[in-house]
């Protein structure tokens, strides 16, 4: 893993602030699924024949952390309108890259998996009710990194949201796979070591039998 991490670092344009596309490449190293997508430069033409519709078009910048607030996300683009919306986004953010991804359909709630660095105890991994309201729900559980799959399962069981895993309203969510993902994220934090300051996977959703990270942010010291 050390080699792979090193190679990932070398590919970064901005070594201190990786953008969303970079961050997604990082979690992919730990077997965490992300939507198929392409990062395109300010001068690039749209070239996404190998990605299935519908599409999400997002500004992809290491300086714009809250994309939605800056109108940096356009959802539900079909083959017809994606070209226009891609241009629109390039006009809106002329100096930035644009990320075009397959837009996943998913069932059940959005989760968040995160890493913070506690000043006394080092890296801790978190799972919680995700999405834009995550800070309002405050439905979270923490463990120190690295944490085992068993520990991660305990974390999920602690959430107010946990009954969704008991076939709630016919939802068939894979708890074990989510626990494995949490454990993998904690492993990532452990491997990256002290330089990792924070990491957010929000939301992570259950799509087509897999947990898939729709947005990833990573921050270094």
């Amino acid at each position: 893993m050390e080699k792979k991490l090193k190679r990932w670092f070398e590919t970064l344009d901005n070594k201190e602030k990786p953008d969303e596309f970079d961050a997604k490449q990082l979690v992919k190293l730990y077997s965490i699924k992300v939507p198929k997508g392409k990062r395109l430069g300010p001068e690039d033409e749209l070239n996404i024949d190998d990605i299935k519709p519908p599409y999400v078009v997002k500004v992809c910048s290491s300086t714009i952390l809250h994309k939605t607030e800056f109108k940096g996300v356009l959802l539900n683009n079909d083959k017809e309108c994606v070209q226009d919306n891609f241009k629109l986004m390039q006009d809106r953010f002329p100096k930035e890259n644009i990320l075009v991804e397959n837009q996943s359909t998913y069932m059940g709630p959005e989760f968040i998996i995160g890493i913070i660095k506690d000043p006394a105890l080092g890296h801790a991994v978190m799972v919680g009710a995700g999405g834009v309201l995550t800070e309002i729900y405050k439905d979270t559980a923490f463990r120190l990194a690295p944490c085992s799959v068993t520990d991660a399962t305990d974390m999920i069981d602690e959430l107010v949201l946990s009954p969704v895993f008991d076939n709630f309203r016919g939802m068939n969510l894979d708890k074990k796979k989510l626990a494995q993902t949490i454990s993998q994220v904690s492993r990532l934090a452990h491997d990256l070591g002290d330089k990792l300051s924070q990491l957010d996977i929000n939301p992570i959703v259950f799509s087509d039998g897999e947990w898939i990270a729709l947005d990833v942010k990573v921050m270094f010291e």
Partner: protein
Amino acid sequence: MDRIASLKRFLNPEKIAVIGASKSKNKVGGIVFRRLLDSRRRLFPVNPKETAIEGYKVSPDIQSLPKDIDLAIITISAAAAVKSVETCIEKGIPNYIIVAGGFGEVGSQGRALEEKLTRLAKENHVNILGPNSLGIFLPDENIDTIFVEHGDKSLDRKGRVACIVQSGSVGVEALGYASNTGYGMRAFVGLGNKCDLDEIDFLEYFARDEKTNCLGFYLENIERGRQFLTVAKEVAREKPVVVLKAGRTHTAASAVSSHTGKLAGSDNVISGALKQFGIQRVYDDEEFCDATKVLSMLSGALGNRVAVLTAAGGYGVMCTDFIEKKDMRAPLKMAKLSKDTQKRIKEATFPFTACENPVDITASADDRMFSQSLDALIEDDGVDIIICIAFFAPPGISENLIDIIADKIKKSDKPIIVFTKYGPFTDNRIKNLYTAGVVAYPSVGRAVRAARFLVERTKIKQRLDQKA
């Protein structure tokens, strides 16, 4: 020498010097010295202004002390205390308790003094407890250096809980109050500012102490956090470890820094980490005492099915509500009693006894009915824990009920927790139960919570054994 081995001499010293011992009964040096008179150890007061205290000859200075002092208790103020430690080190004294405040908690000058103590301890391989330590108290060893009232006469001997507290007053007030209803303390250690000895040292020491079977900590900041957790997890395989971690919210955290001059970490992380490492967290001093009491007196339940035996219908209903309520601790459920159990209880009591759980044998019940119903519940394989709601006001119930319950606890592995109230005599009755070996609480909620501690402990133990 191995630090843990050296702590044995610290906590069970033969020769104790009290630096700043005083004739005055109002001065710390006077109180500490007088407390030690009961210890049957050899005492050496030091004070240039005194010649004799309570018939003991006072040494004018540290140099005049004999060679092999085991422990020096320094009762003088901060700057002078540091100087005297330096002199004592030259004299070869290995262990110190520094009572005075005025160190890291008051600003840069104090911090410099505290850092000096840390350096002295490291360079000379001596043990320093404090500064700002309330001292140590081991009832079985007759060692008591605590200079405030703390219910020492009522704390039971042969206690098995080691209490290690960062804030001395939280410790003594909580335990002093707990002693009203009986509390078995093995040791009290006031950590204070932790310039040298900290929670890990005592965690390791009491983990190996045969007289200790449960460890409780009050902490505001955890030094060497990961190491504490790792060691605690090892200890938790054998003995329950309970932590009251204060400094949870932002405001409380700033209060912590004014109290011991340090900041505490984020609370959610701590909560998760404690669970991860098999440590049982509590949130106030009452819960601390309740948890350590039950965990030291009863071993973990095999499961979480609770039977309730009551002589008062209302409390039985209330108890059921508490058991079935969702709680952040281990879930409990009401046991389903076997037909045989129900039949036995009816035969032993009245044909009209409500034998679905809760079992209500009514205020007409007597000692014998209580005893036989309890037997039936103990022998029911569908029951893991029994909560016994016992009242002493009904005419058929006598004081003998205490011994009846105590006897069953001795003979059975099944934990029995008692909830009782007896008007103004409640505390005393609970203490009598404690003396007989019975864990009792004066409220339904606390009795049910105690059952959760036991189930939580069982789960921790199973998890740790699995991973081993």
